């Protein structure tokens, strides 16, 4: 059988750190396959149930020895037809479907969905609501990145960062629970506002988290960033050029690691992100190591945004005052005739939308999350509700990234993309 020649990218030259230790190690070039040992290519199947696929993902690999010649991802095992179900639900009922997509950062999805519906209907939320949503989204960006950090480290054999990051995640779970009553299925937002305002003491709980979390992050930095094993497993692995990264549809930290300065929070700011002081980390080589560094720095930046948002958190109502959009308080609904009618109409009929469509793209933890809603005149349910899934498009690049690498590198590349199958399959 004819041997397929694949170019192997060799890692960077080692550099000496200030402490005299090498901070980067070269990846030794290796020959693809001995030409005189003629063996057949082998087809192996990773998943759908395997810890290293980070969900019910199946990867069909064609191998030459240990070298990956071709990868065919097979998805759809978790397909739940959320978009079809959405067509049978009123605008507010869909919120509960959104957090089941990315269960690793549910609040970002809750917020993105209602932002899109509000933009379609022309609803301007209150100042307090804007800042609260920024807080929730940045908190869940850390939440999502922490899971990626722990599971990716464990894929290359580092167990300790997993424990550290899951300890920190547990604290955000508690914040979720205090705010919404649920740890994962938060469903915290409503069209025109939030399910409830922040409970008393919640911001102090978050401040406690922000005070100690950077210390944990620094410890993980210490464990991984200069770690020769980690560097050897990530540098030069799964590299992609900037032009290819755009063309293949990368968004989020994966795109920025390739050296493209594109962040929806900077390019199409929403919720006054232009007034927050934060940096967007940009990589250089587009490999697994740069993706790692970008996400680590993004967590630091999110801590900074959270501090600024907490400092500017204004008082006032969290929901819009329009009784055709927000539910009245329970006391009003039970004692005031007008409020009771509004309550009844909102629950039984829903909020009528104008005719048209609206695409709202936001920067989720995994990339650009787009919520596209289409409505007909006066409809209280969407004609079409489409989620532009960042992980779906990011995963489609894996055949290009993994070709020519070893099977063990395929695991690292898959981990470095930070995918979540709930949102890929929807």
């Amino acid at each position, binding site marked *: *059988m004819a041997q397929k020649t694949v170019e192997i990218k060799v890692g960077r030259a080692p550099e000496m750190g200030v402490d005299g230790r090498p901070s980067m190690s070269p990846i030794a070039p290796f020959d693809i396959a001995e030409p005189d040992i003629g063996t*057949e*290519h*082998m*087809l192996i199947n990773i998943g759908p149930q395997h810890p290293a696929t980070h969900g019910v993902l199946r990867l*069909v690999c*064609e191998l030459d020895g240990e070298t990956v010649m*071709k990868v*065919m991802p097979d*998805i*759809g095992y978790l*397909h739940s*037809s959320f*978009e*079809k*179900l959405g*067509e*049978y639900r009123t605008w507010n009922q869909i919120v509960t479907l959104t957090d089941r997509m990315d269960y690793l950062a549910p609040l970002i999805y809750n917020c993105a969905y209602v932002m899109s519906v509000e*933009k*379609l209907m*022309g609803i301007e939320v209150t100042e307090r609501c804007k800042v609260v949503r920024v807080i929730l989204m940045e908190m869940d960006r850390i939440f999502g990145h922490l899971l990626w950090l722990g599971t990716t480290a464990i894929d290359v054999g580092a167990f300790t960062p997993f424990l550290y990051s899951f300890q920190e995640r547990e604290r955000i779970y508690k914040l979720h629970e205090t705010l919404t009553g649920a740890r994962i299925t938060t469903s915290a937002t409503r069209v025109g506002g939030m399910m409830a305002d922040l409970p008393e003491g919640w911001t102090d709980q978050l401040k406690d988290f922000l005070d100690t979390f950077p210390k944990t992050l620094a410890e993980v930095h210490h464990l991984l960033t200069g770690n020769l094993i980690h560097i050897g497993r990530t540098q030069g692995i799964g590299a992609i050029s900037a032009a*290819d990264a*755009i*063309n*293949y*549809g990368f968004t989020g930290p994966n795109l920025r690691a390739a050296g*493209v300065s*594109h962040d929806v929070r900077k*390019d*199409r700011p929403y919720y006054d992100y232009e007034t927050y002081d934060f940096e967007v980390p940009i990589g250089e080589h587009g490999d697994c190591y740069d993706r790692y560094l970008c996400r680590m720095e993004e967590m630091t930046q999110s801590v900074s945004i959270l501090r600024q948002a907490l400092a500017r958190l204004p008082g006032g109502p969290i929901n819009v005052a329009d009784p055709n959009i927000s539910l009245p308080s329970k006391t009003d609904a039970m004692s005031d005739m007008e409020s009771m009618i509004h309550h009844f109409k909102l629950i039984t009929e829903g909020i009528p939308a*104008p*005719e*048209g*469509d*609206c*695409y709202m*793209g936001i920067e989720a933890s995994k990339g*650009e999350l*787009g919520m*596209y809603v*289409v409505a*007909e*005149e006066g*409809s209280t*349910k969407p*004609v*079409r509700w*489409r989620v*532009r899934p960042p992980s*779906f*498009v990011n995963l*489609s*690049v894996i055949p*290009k990234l993994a070709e020519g690498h070893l099977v063990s590198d395929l695991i690292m590349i898959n981990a470095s993309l930070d995918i979540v199958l709930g949102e890929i*399959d*929807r």
Partner: protein
Amino acid sequence: MTAKKKSGLDAVDDGPQASDATEVGQGGSSGDPNAHVSVKGLIEKFPDAVVRHCVNAGDQHVVWVDPTRSMEILTWLKDDASQLYDMMTDVTAIDYGGGRPVNVVYQMFSTTHKHSLRVRCELPLDVMEIASVANLWKCADWLEREVYDLFGVNFVGHPDLRRILMPQDYAEGHPLRKDFPLRGRFSRAEQTRRALNQEVDRFYVPDLLEHAGEPQEVPEVGAHATDVGGNT
């Protein structure tokens, strides 16, 4: 709608009801086409291919173009120096039901000019095909497969147009079409029967097996071994 609306589980199997609207208009307010550089450019460059334009949700420009010329128009949007839409954010479709045309939607962003644009093409139900852009933007590969899978739109020139979310041998049609009932076309009994009768081999797409080459010959140990193994 004159017929009495069914409620509860009775309505579930009927799929979403067609609205009373008979007009095709799906736009919001008609905005000024000169406000967006790409809309202005499209109308100047392809005056006979731009069907209509509107501004939705405040500031989102939507352009409907002739589906038979979509390739030419999208290539121009990607390559022309004044446009440079290098990021194909999303490819999706909308089925309004009631026999109205299916809309294929392209959501684009230019990282150079920081412009967003939405291009829509109306496909009549009897001509459900449009040129594939998977060779222009690689990310459109999977996005178009999903639209094919869920809506049945045929993307001409796509390198690998297969189902992606539903199983390869899914026989009930295209789930996001409005005429597809929420519970599927087959009865629960039929769905269960099919699930129980499925063969393991179907999980491997035949062309995947071809990539692996011919299966290796297993040396025969003796007549007894073949009798027991039973190569079926």
